């Protein structure tokens, strides 16, 4: 058998993974990336051929929630992600080595693959008092992220903490916590916020990089457009109830049992950009709103401060219950986000207003 050290094909053969399953995985990734299905063979070819880049997973001010998200994912399974798409050389929560041994393997990879390895950062980095609020192996996270991140091919900031500071940066930010982008210059940083981030999006980013040879297009907040390009509210399965003015008024009431809109209970879906309603969690079975809890806006910067209290309605909303109001809310917020998003909001507002008219026109024509 020809040896293809590092290639995905050999990893697949070793693990006895059927080609059909591999192509299913490629198809799933192509779908997450919102690419047409004709890209599936291209994705497969790209993953099969090249050597797997070493990946260093660094944890700083974190709760390991993003690690849990990766470990508990079934599609892709952790094996698919770790063994096939990437070569995970360092991850404190799952690696066998500890102490000096662990740090040595980390620094060996940094030396040997300078400018080639990928870094995933989980957790924020404290900057106050010289960065003493987080140390690994006697060195501050501040020092480590600049050295290891600064020599990487790219950094993926997994979760809202690594992307924007997250919970440690919530007021009054006792440790001066910041996200990776505030500390590392000259290296691409892809933000995958979410509390936690969705592993499907992490894998899709890597697959995109391997297939196209470039990182996916991002918005002004460094988030890939394929995953953070549309509002939760616009893709929400409960949207029809919002449009119909059917709201949950109290936990466990008639509307809650019926699965009505959670807007009045504090849902932040109208100002949050994420593909949760499409990709979902637990192997695509459910997601927070599907389970009956409003969105807290966890993929938005500073959501711990700007979206809380989580059970209060969106601020400065005079009324609600009709489509126009929701889109005004969306537009008001979207205007502060980016031009592209603003366009999207406008488009959805126009679409929302236009659809009933179009529909009645069609009916008239049919008659």
């Amino acid at each position, binding site marked *: 058998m020809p040896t293809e050290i590092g290639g995905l094909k050999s990893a697949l053969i070793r693990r006895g993974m059927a080609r059909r399953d591999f192509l299913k995985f490629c198809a799933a990734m192509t779908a997450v990336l919102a690419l047409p299905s004709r890209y599936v063979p291209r994705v497969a070819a790209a993953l099969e051929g090249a050597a797997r880049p070493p990946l260093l997973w660094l*944890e*700083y*001010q974190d*709760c*390991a*929630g993003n*690690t849990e998200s990766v470990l508990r994912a079934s599609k892709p399974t952790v094996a698919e992600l770790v063994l096939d798409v990437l070569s995970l050389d360092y991850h*404190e*929560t*799952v*690696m*066998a*080595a*500890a*102490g000096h041994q*662990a*740090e040595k393997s980390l620094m060996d990879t940094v030396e040997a693959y300078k400018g080639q390895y990928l870094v995933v950062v989980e957790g924020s980095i*404290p900057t106050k008092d010289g960065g003493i*609020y*987080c*140390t*690994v*192996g*006697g060195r501050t996270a501040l020092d480590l992220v600049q050295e290891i991140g600064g020599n990487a091919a790219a950094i993926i900031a997994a979760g809202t903490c690594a992307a924007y500071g997250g*919970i*440690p940066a*919530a*007021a*009054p*930010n*006792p*440790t001066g*916590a910041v996200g990776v982008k505030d500390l590392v210059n000259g290296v691409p940083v892809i933000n995958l916020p979410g*509390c936690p981030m969705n592993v499907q999006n992490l894998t899709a980013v890597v697959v995109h990089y391997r297939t196209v040879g470039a990182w996916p297009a991002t918005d002004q907040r460094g988030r890939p457009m394929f995953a953070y390009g549309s509002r939760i509210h616009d893709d929400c399965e409960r949207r029809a109830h919002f449009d119909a003015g059917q709201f949950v008024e109290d936990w466990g009431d008639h509307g809650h049992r019926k699965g009505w809109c959670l807007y009045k209970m504090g849902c932040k879906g109208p100002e949050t950009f994420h593909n949760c309603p499409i990709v979902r969690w637990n192997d695509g079975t459910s997601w927070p709103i599907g389970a009956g809890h409003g969105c*807290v806006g966890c993929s938005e910067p500073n959501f*711990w401060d700007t979206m*809380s*209290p*989580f*059970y*209060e309605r969106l601020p400065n909303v005079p009324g609600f219950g009709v489509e126009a109001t929701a889109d005004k809310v969306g537009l008001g917020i979207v205007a502060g986000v980016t031009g592209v998003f603003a366009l999207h909001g406008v488009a959805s507002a126009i679409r929302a207003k236009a659809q009933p008219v179009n529909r009645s026109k069609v009916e008239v024509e049919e008659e």
Partner: protein
Amino acid sequence: MAKIAIDPVTRIEGHLRVEAQVDDGQVTDAWSSATMWRGIETILQGRDPRDAWYFTQRI
């Protein structure tokens, strides 16, 4: 007399450093330190109590 330090302790959630004093093959003293602090208690002050679970879940 030797002092050993294991930092980071892996396969745990969080950041931990363990130091041990070893005399004639026996551990005579040991210290452990959590090497990461976020100040969640401080961050929680003054917030809506209904939100507390969501913050503390991240510990």
